[in-house]
């Protein structure tokens, strides 16, 4: 019985892997003429910058994301009901918009300079650019990749171990290091890997911060109409992704797997004591830099524009909101559902070759820049081998989202499946409940909040995605992010500010509904 259902799982995983492999294979075929040119071109420097940025950002987001998750989910931080909604939100800014607003808010001559520092007689000398600032900006806008899975994991941990440790006189600090950290390491690693992959393919922010990574070379190839060089260069990014996956696997094997029962008990909340004030300042400062500063810029744009008579084009708001919700929810649901079998296979059968291959393919697709994936899908849709209705259709765009962001759902799924104790499956099997029914009645309820975190990640990513959406969205439709970008590009700042604020509000509401409310309802957050 067990063998048969495992066999079916492998077949399902192989089918999903094929779906993800198709665009990568196409890239490989189209890029083969350009490999020579890429080898001859000097990509060493931009590649080095890319890897330095991705590695550093993965480390900084691990620290910031975990700290925020711990403070908000597990301490008596003042205002945590507010922070738990606010903390994931910086992820909603399309990186170009986020960086543009960050610059407008904090750089020399920016909003903070005009309204905060100059009245105080301080002359800001911040020139925001280069490696250090790129790390800062990426950290601010991507720490939710770590924060969300860690929060989900923290709220699933059984209180019993921590209670025993405490009754044995273990201090909170030691308890975090010795008891909690080993249990959330997998979630931190999963999040850090997402940040690494995201940073590989990131272009909008680093180009504004004038830091020349490999994605700039890719965009320059496109600017020169050289599709195959762009493809070849993005395969270099995919190779980086494969490398880091191999490292991660090796690390995970060495550390072994820690299973813990989820659900049931309300987690312990620790008292911050004298650390309350610095902790609140830290959480507030992060939100000020990553969310409220940029939002103040957007609000200023909207207000200033309205005052001088610019149109906000409010009539475009409702259709844009509808499109954003549609694609966000559908993309997230599809990505979570499609990658769940892979998560099962790689957690339950780590040595299975199909599972490992599928994991590598799905994960490396995240490192391919959205622009390049957009190219691939347009190219594919324009050949005679696919039905014509697929060209510029909604299902193709959803497929692109699933391929691009499947890795996020998969990482979350992996963390979730690892939290479902295997003996539950054995118990239900002994009771004669097996296969799909066991999955629906036993596993799925246990995984709900974790899957919600994964869906929330994908949803926020879809809501802010720009280049692939721009190329693939059906004519006449437009997401909020597209509207923001388009309006910014043509300097309709009032409209850009208005739509970006709508995007933040909408994403906040959706994240609350999908990710936070399930946790809160169970009394865990």
């Amino acid at each position, binding site marked *: 019985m067990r063998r048969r259902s495992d066999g079916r799982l492998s077949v399902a995983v192989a089918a999903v892997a094929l779906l993800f492999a198709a665009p990568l294979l196409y890239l490989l075929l189209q890029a083969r003429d350009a490999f020579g040119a890429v080898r001859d071109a000097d990509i060493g420097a931009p590649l080095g910058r890319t890897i330095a940025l991705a590695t550093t950002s993965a480390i900084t987001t691990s620290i910031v994301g975990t700290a925020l998750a711990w403070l908000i989910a597990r301490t008596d931080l003042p205002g945590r009901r507010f922070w738990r909604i606010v903390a994931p939100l910086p992820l909603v800014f399309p990186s170009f918009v986020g960086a543009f607003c960050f610059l407008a808010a904090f750089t020399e001559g920016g909003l903070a300079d005009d309204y905060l520092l100059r009245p105080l007689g301080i002359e800001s000398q911040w020139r925001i650019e280069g490696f250090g600032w790129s790390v800062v900006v990426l950290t601010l806008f991507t720490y939710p990749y770590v924060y969300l899975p860690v929060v989900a994991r923290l709220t699933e941990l059984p209180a019993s171990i921590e209670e025993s440790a405490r009754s044995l006189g273990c201090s909170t600090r030691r308890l975090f290091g010795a008891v909690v950290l080993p249990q959330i390491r997998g979630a931190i690693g999963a999040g850090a890997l997402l940040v690494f992959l995201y940073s590989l393919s990131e272009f909008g922010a680093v180009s504004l911060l004038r830091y020349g990574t490999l994605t700039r070379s890719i965009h320059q190839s*496109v*600017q020169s109409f050289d599709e195959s060089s762009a493809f070849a260069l993005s395969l270099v990014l995919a190779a980086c992704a494969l490398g880091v996956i191999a490292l991660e696997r090796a690390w995970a094997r060495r550390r072994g797997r820690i299973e813990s029962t989820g659900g049931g008990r309300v987690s312990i909340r620790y008292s911050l004591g004298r650390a309350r004030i610095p902790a609140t300042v830290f959480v507030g400062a992060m939100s000020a830099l990553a969310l409220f500063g940029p939002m103040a810029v957007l609000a200023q744009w909207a207000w200033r524009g309205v005052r001088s008579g610019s149109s906000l084009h409010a009539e475009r708001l409702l259709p844009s909101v509808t499109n954003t919700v549609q694609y966000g929810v559908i993309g997230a649901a599809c990505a979570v559902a499609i990658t769940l079998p892979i998560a099962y296979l790689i957690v339950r059968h780590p040595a299975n070759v199909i599972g490992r291959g599928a994991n590598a393919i799905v994960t490396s697709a995240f490192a391919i820049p959205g622009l390049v994936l957009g190219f691939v899908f347009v190219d594919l849709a324009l050949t005679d081998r696919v039905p014509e209705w697929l060209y510029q259709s*909604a*299902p193709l765009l959803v497929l692109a989202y699933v391929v691009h962001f499947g890795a996020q759902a998969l990482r979350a799924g992996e963390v979730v499946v690892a939290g479902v104790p295997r003996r539950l499956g054995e118990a239900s099997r002994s009771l004669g409940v097996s296969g799909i029914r066991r999955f629906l009645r036993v596993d799925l309820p246990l995984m709900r909040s974790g899957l919600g975190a994964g869906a929330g990640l994908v949803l926020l990513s879809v809501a802010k995605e720009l280049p692939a959406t*721009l190329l693939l969205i059906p*004519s006449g439709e437009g997401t909020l992010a597209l509207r923001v970008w388009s309006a*910014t590009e043509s300097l309709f700042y009032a409209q850009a500010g208005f739509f970006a604020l709508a995007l933040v509000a909408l994403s906040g509401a959706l994240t609350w509904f999908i990710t936070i409310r399930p946790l809160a309802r169970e009394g865990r957050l």
Partner: protein
Amino acid sequence: MRSLVKWGVRLLVPVAATAGLAACGGGGGADLEIYSGRNRDLIEPLIERFEAESGLDVEVRYPGDSTAAALLIDSEGDRGPDLFISQSPGAMGFLDAQGHLLELDGDAFDRVPDRLRAPDGHWVGTSARVRVVVYNANNVEPVELPDSVFDLVDSEYRGRVGIAADNASFVDFVTSMRELEGDDEAQRFLEGLAANDVRDYGTGNDAVLAAVARGEVDFGLVNHYYNARAKAEDPDQPTVNHLFAAGDVGSVVLLTTVGLLQSGDDHRSAAERFIEFLLSDESQQYFADETLEYPVVDGIEVGETGIGSLSEIDAPTVDLARLGEEFGSTRDMIESSGVVDS
């Protein structure tokens, strides 16, 4: 069993919703398909007007100039767009040089002067823009304003100039310089900018203008209309357009263009109707009033652009077809000059 149904429903809803989206969003059936290199906010109102007036169903995507050209360059067969609208002549000329455009005919195009359309009749200008240097009036004295774009390599402008080197308009400006002053002169200019610590903002003229407004740089090489648009939103912004001296290549006139693609032959009459619409008084007035560009036909009242009307500008004449032919080689020259180095 109940949970099975519940989860079944939850999984089916997205699938059904996707199918529903497919039913309403499918492509291929439109009367006219357009790739626009121009920004959506600038061109969509005109397209909506055209649809209302003609009763035709128009589908538009907005990939941007270079992305559109890169997508179209390999296209074969009749799938794909019928028309391409470009924000600068280079991308259009590039497609033309690669044999992707069909000849246009129709009397309406005669309204456009010869110098504002392709010599081979493969594309026509729809609006004009002038290259300018925008400066921050708080940080720049009037005596510091350069007469020629070549002045910007002088030491007094060190670290004070911003460009968008990956933007199609900047590439076309450099090609114009190569045509008018020769390759050596253009090469020296780019290397001089690089040595003078020019700051490159990638593809974004908007980023250049924002940097000038903040005082991050004092001068920015952009198209003329950015400043007027930004000041419409924020009248207090201390940015001012400056035109280089008469005949200087720094103030060359560039065009937005439209051309009929090979894949658009089956929709030729709808395409030509749309092009006529773009060149009508109504649309030309729209460009003058809303996008703050110069019309390409006579008799349109030009709004407030800050530097007067097109006929008053003594801009150098460039063979626009060359901008497409040399687009790739100019890109190479820009990349190897070091202006995008960091």
